[in-house]
């Protein structure tokens, strides 16, 4: 729903990373995206295509989206289950006393930059 907004946030974050690492051109960006992060990968990719073409730093950069599975925890029967398949009700006991363990992440994992081989440091 707000993919374009988050793409602007991604690009702002990348500008800072680039400045910290003396990078002028980014060739590839890898994001990690939880299955229930409310960000839709295909919309994100479309917005990236549009927004990245307007920024020199990421113009033409490839976007890789790594999904992170959504897993919930049932506090009553102390078991894990897949959130996408079963939602908020535990498939073992039917209870609703459940919490998301992982799956709402939205992270920049790494970037690839063309250029001479150097020690990669996180500056």
């Amino acid at each position, binding site marked *: 729903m707000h993919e*374009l*907004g988050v793409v602007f*946030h991604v690009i702002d974050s990348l500008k800072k990373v680039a400045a910290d690492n003396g990078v002028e051109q980014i060739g590839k960006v890898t994001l990690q995206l939880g299955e229930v992060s*409310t960000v839709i990968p295909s919309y994100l990719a479309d917005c990236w295509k549009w927004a990245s073409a307007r920024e020199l730093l990421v113009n033409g950069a490839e976007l890789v989206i790594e999904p992170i599975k959504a897993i919930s925890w049932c506090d009553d029967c102390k078991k894990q289950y897949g959130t996408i398949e079963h939602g908020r009700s535990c498939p073992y006991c039917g209870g609703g006393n459940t919490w998301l363990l992982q799956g709402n992440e*939205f992270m920049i994992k790494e970037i690839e930059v*063309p250029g001479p081989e150097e020690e990669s440091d*996180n500056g």
Partner: protein
Amino acid sequence: MDKVRVIEVKQSIFADNNAHADRLRARLRSEKSFLVNLMSSPGAGKTTTLARTIADLGGEMRIGVMEADIDSTVDAEAIAAAGAHAIQLHTGGMCHLDAAMTEQGLDELGSADFDLVVLENVGNLVCPAEFDTGAAKNVAILSVPEGHDKPLKYPLMFQVCHALLINKIDVLPYFDFDMDKVVSYAKMRNPSIRIFPICAKTGEGFDAWEDWLREQTAAWNSGE
């Protein structure tokens, strides 16, 4: 293929916005301005609720309002008519406000001149919940016609809110809305959420909501 260098970033997309929001909260603390981020679906009654709240509290505290709409100044005019200083924020077509946009609004409003500043966020239950605006407290409004299952459908909104106003209780007899269920669904995701059933049209339930707002404003502005 050319040699490439991989730089590990491992940074949450929202980290920058969260840091910005924390800086904004520190500024508001030192200005003694209590910022409330008011969120709801379109049509839940944000502006009507706000206008009545301003009319009731305007005599005892200085209230400023930032209206975030994609277009138009309809809401800002209604709020100004209720007696508060209001400005219109432009989201540039975006579905939410972030901390940077909120800061621009606070600068334009002159937040230090107000005891209470209300940010009327874009009408939407999804995106505004994702972005910390720098507000001291988040408040959501859910109206009876929207149904009692909204906390299940939009869990993040109800997780990030400190208070929930359930508006339009005057039409409860006409809707299949279960007040006990909405309370239990909201508390399931957020055990400490404060819930106030209100009717912005008649003023029913406003005493408890306004007492909460008064207490929270006083606590923040006294540095508690």
